[in-house]
């Protein structure tokens, strides 16, 4: 009985254990099923996304930034692939081979920090970026990884960098890169690549979701060769005059197209100062005062005023000249750049007339050029003028303008009085390379009638031929121009002692202008007059561009307007000047002078351009033409050979004093 009861108890225990075990299994199965439901049904999407993330990689495909081209289609800025080289020391098997390959192909040694397998860092980036050609043979080296990235490249290095700007982190910064960023940038694409279990990309499994859209090409009005010539001329001028900075703007006055624009700051860096810094233009403003007088029939070029002994006291202020001019016509006032003369003439203008003409020439308002950071300059309303403002404005004080504004205003003088809108972008090229015109040349207004500019041009030609701008003179072509010198202000807004801006505005050829030049030099420390420092920049630029092949000028017209008889350089052109001292503009100075009488040499000089060291022409009679030319070239002279055989004469003649750069005629005979 007892045994049966024990047996029953044991079976009952076993059954309950089985039940418990089953319950456990069922609970476990339940949990698993619940988890399965959770993963497969409730969290299905999240897990699916996670799996996709592990096996697929969505990445951006960078769009190629559009090119910037010059007006002839030459590349000024392009985007291209460059490579960064990454060293993985832990993967390198043969350090010697890697080091030698880096030396050979990149010219840099294997960094010490990456030259052993126990290097601290897993990855080591080599400094700099390399072309795909340079890194091509490094690809097969174990432990050397190549990363490609799109980089902005300026094929001519520093050429037009101020105008072009830069690209920082893929975004345009300054210049055209910034102004046209939305057009140049394009739109990045997206692609999905499949990865294996180790995270490596599976080749051929990339799917493009949206292709990148390349940026459009921007064609500028800038001409590459002209830009290069301008930059060289300006750099030479800065070196020879010791100027801190300078600007040179060349435009086509008929269309307002900017053909070259260069600004260099004190550190020699290209900037856009021609657009975003202003200066008091000094005497370069005088043609506009004259235009106002002519337009309102308040003066004729033959009208005279008494410039007295070169100074005039008005409203408690003394305006001075470096000349003692006496009675001068308006023509002579401009030609000799008399402050007293132009100030006395300006009294005939009402403040409203003077203000309106200056404003209409574009002073005091932005030009609207498609470049960032443009400033408007300063031209105060007549209500804010003092009693002497009329006089100050007449010779370029109490007004501030950018070199670009000056260039466009001079352009109006060259273009029958029409002020043109500045153009820097000529066209946009779409994805197929088809050009699409970007705006059209547009006249903002006609500031003065054509007859005014027709009367003014011969005056400005005389400024260059026999006035204060003779260092811009060409013997075979007419140039119309005007020089200016004005005191420069320091950072405190006050005039700096001995600091001047020298400037020169000119158009060429004077008969039917195609090119407009404006030059500004900041604080030249040799001579500081615009006619002595800024005018030669224009001349050297013009001489160089005449011999360049791609410059947009009508050579047929040049051949027609070439002077039949070259105008000789004036001898002692400014002997009437008594002093070279520029008086304080606060008291009305700011005139032009070139050679002080006391420094004029006793011997006759061929050129008005005074050289630091006069050159004396040697006796070359009987020498072969080749020997004579070589000898004169070595002296820094230009030579025009006539005839052949042996030299029979040199003109101007043996023993004559000449200046470097003068042209000597070498006449040969059999």
């Amino acid at each position, binding site marked *: 009985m007892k045994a049966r009861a024990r047996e029953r108890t044991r079976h009952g225990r076993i059954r309950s254990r089985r039940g418990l075990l089953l319950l456990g299994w069922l609970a476990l199965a339940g949990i698993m099923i619940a988890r399965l439901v959770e993963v497969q049904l409730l969290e299905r999407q999240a897990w699916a996304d996670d799996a996709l993330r592990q096996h697929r990689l969505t990445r951006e495909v960078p769009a190629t930034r559009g090119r910037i081209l010059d007006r*002839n289609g*030459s*590349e000024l800025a*392009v985007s*291209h*692939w460059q490579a960064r080289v990454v060293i993985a020391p832990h993967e390198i098997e043969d350090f010697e081979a890697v080091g030698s390959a880096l030396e050979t192909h990149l010219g840099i040694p294997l960094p010490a920090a990456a030259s052993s397998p126990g290097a601290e860092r897993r990855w080591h980036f080599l400094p700099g970026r390399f*072309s*795909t*050609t340079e890194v*091509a043979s490094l690809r097969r080296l174990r432990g050397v990884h190549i990363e490609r990235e799109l980089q902005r*490249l300026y*094929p*001519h290095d520093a*050429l037009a960098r101020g105008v072009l700007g830069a690209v920082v982190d893929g975004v345009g910064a300054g210049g055209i890169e910034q102004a046209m960023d939305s057009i140049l940038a394009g739109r990045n694409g997206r692609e999905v690549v499949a990865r294996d279990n180790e995270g490596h990309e*599976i*080749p*051929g*499994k990339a799917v493009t979701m949206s292709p990148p859209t390349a940026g459009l090409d921007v064609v500028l009005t800038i001409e*590459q*060769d002209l830009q*290069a*010539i301008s930059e*060289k001329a300006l750099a030479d001028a800065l070196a020879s005059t010791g100027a801190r900075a300078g600007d040179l703007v060349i435009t086509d006055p008929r269309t307002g197209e900017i053909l070259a624009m260069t600004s260099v700051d004190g550190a020699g860096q290209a900037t856009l100062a021609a657009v975003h810094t202003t200066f008091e233009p000094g005497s370069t403003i005088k043609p506009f005062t004259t235009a106002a007088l002519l337009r309102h029939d308040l003066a004729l070029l033959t009208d005279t005023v008494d410039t007295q002994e070169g100074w005039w006291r008005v409203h408690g202020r003394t305006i001075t000249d470096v000349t003692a001019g006496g009675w001068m016509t308006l023509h002579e006032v401009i030609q000799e750049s008399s402050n007293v003369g132009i100030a006395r003439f300006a009294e005939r203008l009402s403040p409203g007339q003077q203000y309106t003409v200056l404003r209409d020439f574009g002073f005091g308002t932005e030009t609207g050029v498609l470049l960032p950071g443009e400033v408007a300059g300063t031209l105060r309303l007549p209500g804010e003028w003092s009693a002497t403002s009329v006089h100050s404005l007449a010779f370029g004080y109490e007004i501030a303008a950018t070199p670009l504004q000056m260039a466009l205003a001079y352009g109006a003088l060259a273009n029958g009085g029409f002020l043109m809108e500045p153009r820097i972008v000529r066209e946009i090229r779409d994805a197929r390379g088809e050009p699409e015109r970007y705006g059209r040349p547009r006249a903002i207004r006609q500031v003065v009638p054509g007859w005014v500019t027709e009367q003014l041009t011969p005056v400005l030609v005389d400024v260059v031929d026999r006035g204060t701008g003779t260092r811009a003179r*060409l*013997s*075979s*072509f007419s140039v119309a121009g005007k020089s200016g010198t004005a005191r420069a202000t320091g950072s405190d807004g006050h005039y700096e002692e001995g600091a001047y801006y020298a400037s020169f505005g000119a158009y060429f050829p004077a008969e039917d202008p195609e090119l407009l030049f404006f030059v500004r030099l900041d604080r030249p420390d040799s001579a500081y007059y615009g006619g002595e420092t800024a005018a030669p920049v224009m001349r050297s630029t*013009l*001489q*160089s561009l*005449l*011999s*360049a092949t*791609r*410059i*947009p*000028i*009508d*050579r*047929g*017209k*040049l*051949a027609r307007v*070439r002077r039949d008889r*070259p105008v000789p350089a004036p001898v002692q052109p400014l002997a009437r000047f008594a002093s070279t001292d520029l008086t304080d503009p606060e008291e009305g100075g700011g005139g032009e002078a070139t050679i002080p009488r006391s420094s004029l040499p006793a011997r006759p000089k061929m050129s008005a351009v005074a050289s630091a060291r006069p050159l004396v022409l040697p006796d070359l009679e009987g020498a072969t033409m080749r020997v004579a030319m070589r000898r004169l070239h070595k002296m820094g002279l*230009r030579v*025009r050979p006539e005839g052949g055989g042996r030299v029979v004469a040199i003109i101007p003649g043996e023993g004559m004093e000449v200046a470097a750069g003068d*042209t000597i005629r070498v006449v040969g005979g059999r």
Partner: protein
Amino acid sequence: MTRKRIIARAILAVVAVLASLTVVAWRQSAARAVLAELDAVERELAELAETRAELERAVNAMEARPWVAAEAGRRLGMRPPTEDELVITSGDRR
């Protein structure tokens, strides 16, 4: 069906499955190798195109006036002619 026959069929089935899996794996790895090779060729082609563009750019830069004038001045002493040394012959306009 005898027990031996059942075992033989099972082995055959396992072998068939293994064989087909091997073939699939082989085909896939071969395809991947070909794709990798294709990728490499495409990359090489892109690099060569880029190299060509680089060389073209270098040629253009060396044909441009900034470089030519500087080099001619440095090596040959070339200077731009003055306006009275120029003979203007054509009326072409660019």
